[in-house]
């Protein structure tokens, strides 16, 4: 067991945890933050993407022990007082989702993109979303949503 201090969606948490548990497991099983999904569990599909100290990472390939002192933001942490984040609004408006399984990772990844590149081209959006797999939409609605959100953020 190892003791960690971590800030998740603005809330400070101090806990004793097993050394080998993953951030994705901790979020879902210990904190019931089930918005972060686990798809492949092999760092390929991207539905587990969260922000770690401001950068998007795959929470299924990150140990919680490695996040001591870190700030984590999950999909539950981006809405503001019940008002959806502009990226979430854009996904809704452009049908950037169908089944919704990949959506939390897509949104978190896309928010990170717009932090680093305020006005990405279509190709840059597609390249950035390389690590997020969607089996429903064919990506068109997702790309349109990211473009639209870029114009509003």
């Amino acid at each position, binding site marked *: 067991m*190892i003791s960690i201090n971590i800030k998740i969606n603005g809330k400070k948490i101090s806990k004793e945890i*097993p*050394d*080998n548990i993953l951030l994705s497991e901790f979020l879902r099983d210990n904190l019931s933050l089930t918005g972060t999904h686990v798809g492949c*569990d*092999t*760092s*390929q599909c*991207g539905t587990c*993407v969260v922000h*770690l100290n401001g*950068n*998007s*990472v*795959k929470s299924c*390939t*990150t*140990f919680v*022990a*490695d996040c*001591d002192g870190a700030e984590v933001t999950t999909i539950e942490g981006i809405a503001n007082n019940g008002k959806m984040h502009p990226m979430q609004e854009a996904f809704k408006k452009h049908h950037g989702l169908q089944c919704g399984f990949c959506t939390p990772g897509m949104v978190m*990844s896309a928010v*990170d*993109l717009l932090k680093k590149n305020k006005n990405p081209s279509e190709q840059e959006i597609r390249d*950035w979303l*390389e*690590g997020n797999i969607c089996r429903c939409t064919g990506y068109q609605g997702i790309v349109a949503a990211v473009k639209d959100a870029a114009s509003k953020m």
Partner: protein
Amino acid sequence: MKSFNFKSAANTKEATKLASGRATFLAGGMSLIPAMKLRLAAYSDLINIKKIKGLSGIKVSSKSLKIGATTTHAEVAASKEVGKSIPSLSMLADGIGDPQVRNRGTIGGSIANNDPAADYPSACLALNATIHTNKRKISSDKFFKGMFETDLKKGELIEAVEFEIPEKSAYAKYPNPASRYAIVGVNVAKYKNETRVSVTGAASCVFRSKELESALSSNFSVSAIDKVNISDKNLNEDIHASAEYRAHLIKVMAKKAVSSC
């Protein structure tokens, strides 16, 4: 996943001390954690080296570019110093995995792992890199020993990778469409007295192509590659590409690299 003890080292001395028995160092973990999940690897202890001060960062001098072991691929890709001194290295870093892998994965981790299809080992060989460890300096020509095998000894920790700045260089990769690992990647670096060419993804370990080097050292042009004969002996063969196709791709990627130099 099998259980292990997670420990963070404050400095390299402590890291070496902790790395006894079946312990290993943990940097970004982008290869290590998947390998542990698949039970291809198991350790008694993981020694986190990301909190060690001085292991991360980029320094440029007139002759060389030195990158700290725990510098992430995203940091290398975004660095203005790297973009100015060795632009092919920025491009290489920007093409590793996906953005989330680049946000976590490190240069030291990549070369210590020495995956046969990884990108950084090819840069080390082409750009005549010196690997600085806590014990010694190792020439890249002696560092990469075989598949997932390096010259690092037990408890030896990479501190930085120092690249010799070339006149010009380029990296051309034919990526696996799913993983973005190189099916074949060719790294070309032109220096005053020689041209160095390395190949990744094609064999069980990254290697220098003597044939391409001698052709390009005497005539640095795309047409010089036409006359080179690349044997498919000892090249990889899998569902993605036959050995013959990889041999063909080596020349195609070499031409692409030279023309974009």
